[in-house]
């Protein structure tokens, strides 16, 4: 698995607090039993009017096509656990999200896809948004090891990411299954010590 230490590119801005995962992918697309087509759906209803015509939305704008960095405000990805939301953004082309804060399940799922969610102050997010909207060709680089976003003018801003998420990404162990499978003997020992696995007669199918 790839080590992800630096990730970046051109960026797209989606403004607004508390953008929930229902808005990122409407529930009707969760009826598909694979993630294959999710790249077609990010912000599906927000990008269209009632008749299906495209409306003003950053994801519709030509100048933001090909963006790999998404810049957002507070509590992005709150609500439903649907991994379809980070899958949709990833499959559309996003590789890292910079925001003021994130919904906890969204952030946890994103890291398992190798898509970091990193936090910056409200002021710095505002600066980044203004920068990207005035110059969509600006390249941003998120440096996970230094905990910085590098700006085209040589400047940088500080970012926050949990040690666990950062280490998983920078050491290439963000797809956690293999890591967890390494310890199955210890898993069995932990399970055996829990009284409910043996001493309480359950749960087990009757």
């Amino acid at each position: 698995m790839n080590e992800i230490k630096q990730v970046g590119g051109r960026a797209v801005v989606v403004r607004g607090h508390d953008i929930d995962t229902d808005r990122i992918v409407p529930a009707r697309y969760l009826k598909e039993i694979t993630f294959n087509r999710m790249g077609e759906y990010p912000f599906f209803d927000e990008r269209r009017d009632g008749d299906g015509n495209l409306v003003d939305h950053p994801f519709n704008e030509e100048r933001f096509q090909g963006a790999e960095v998404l810049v957002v405000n507070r509590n992005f990805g709150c609500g439903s656990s649907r991994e379809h939301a980070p899958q949709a953004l990833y499959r559309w082309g996003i590789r890292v999200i910079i925001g003021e804060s994130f919904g906890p399940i969204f952030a946890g799922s994103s890291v398992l896809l190798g898509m970091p969610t990193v936090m910056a102050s409200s002021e710095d997010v505002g600066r980044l948004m203004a920068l990207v909207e005035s110059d969509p060709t600006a390249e941003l680089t998120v440096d996970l090891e230094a905990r910085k976003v590098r700006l085209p003018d040589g400047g940088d801003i500080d970012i926050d990411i949990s040690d666990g998420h950062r280490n998983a990404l920078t050491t290439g162990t963000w797809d956690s299954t293999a890591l967890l499978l390494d310890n199955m003997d210890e898993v069995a020992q932990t399970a055996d010590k829990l009284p409910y696995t043996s001493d309480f007669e359950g749960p087990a199918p009757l």
Partner: protein
Amino acid sequence: MSERTLYDKVWDSHAVTTLPTGQTQLFIGLHLVHEVTTPQAFDMLRERGLPIAYPQRTFSTLDHVVPTDMRVRPFPDEQAEAMTAALERNVREFGIEFYGLDSDRQGIVHVIGPQLGLTQPGMTLACGDSHTSTHGAFGTLAFGIGTSQVRDVLATQTLAMDRLKVRRINVNGRLPLGVHAKDVILTIIRQLGVGGGKGYAYEYGGDVLDRMNMDERMTVCNMSIEGGALVGYVNPDQTTYDYVLGRPFAPKGEAFDRAVAYWRSMASDPDAGYDDVVDIDGSAIEPTVTWGINPGQAVGVLESLPRPEELTDPKSVEKAYTHMGWEPGAPILGTPIDVAFIGSCTNSRLSDLVAAARVAEGRKVADGVKALVVPGSADVKKQAEAAGLDRVFTEAGFQWREAGCSMCLAMNPDKLNGREVCASSSNRNFIGRQGSPEGRTLLMSPAMVAAAALNGKVVDVRQYN
């Protein structure tokens, strides 16, 4: 840092090891599976040639996509049918207990876990659904997870997790008559914010929680995620043990006594340390209604809608007013509704239906209002019918449905149309949540939904006290 809380005790007893990333590998005692968030996880196992590590700790049912007005297969919706068939194939192939439409144990996953006695205090639990925090009502650490994490739990019965901080939320005093558990959690979210729980587990307590029955505690814990907290819980007490006793998967005989001793030992100690403590006056809580596009945008039923200029962050409500079409400063009381929905993992248990039926009994749903009552499980439906609640509702003009998630989330035929306004006992008023991109949702308690259905508008349920 918190210490000697239930969170700390359960975390420590389920910690397998510290991973090279610094995260904790946490053992998961119970894994609940439903049709929507798992087909890709089973496919990932197949691709990697992995078996399920602890199939006996995994239980599954159908809830999100099932129609509630008929149960004939194949479903008219081909995608719902394919998704159902995929779960049936997966549980067969991987050897998982399954409660399908022909089982009297079928129902919303967060209703059947407790009802069957699968959910127990002092346990860890995971499910690919954000409302998994519901199970915290039992003193269970219950995590809502994404599909790749479902894969991890299937393959290893563990998750890679970061430890949370613990915030104690005391709801003190006594709730006024006509004020319900839903009003308590809507008030908590309104005060602390939809992102206020970021990085925290919420421990709910105080006189109000102590007096609540388990259904009510589940309503409170259910919406923890709407406050930004991944988990929420209530310490187990006699109310908890009495609920679990005698349920199909509960410990039996002497084993139950041993279990209770263990469960008691896992509750937070009287001198436990918390990262934060919040006190809320329960006697000041009113019947509460959301007016906007997230569950924190709520007012007491007698209040008027907030004026943006009075808020610290006026822009945060712009989108809400644009979508909902209300005027700042208008009263919420008297807002006309088109649809009334009583159901969902928040409020579809027997005592929820009883509270709504008390309001509806002997009265009639207003002309032009479509009103639905959707029990949370086949068992809740059976018990409600034994108590005559189905007749109370149907005589009042409500539709009485089969168990499922129904109009909470628009993955089945129960949906809003156009700009309809729905008085809903569910958990999310997000844009598009109930199936129409222009639809509007007002969250409130089941009793308040029943009262709104009778009047065709938002009213104060206390008029029926």
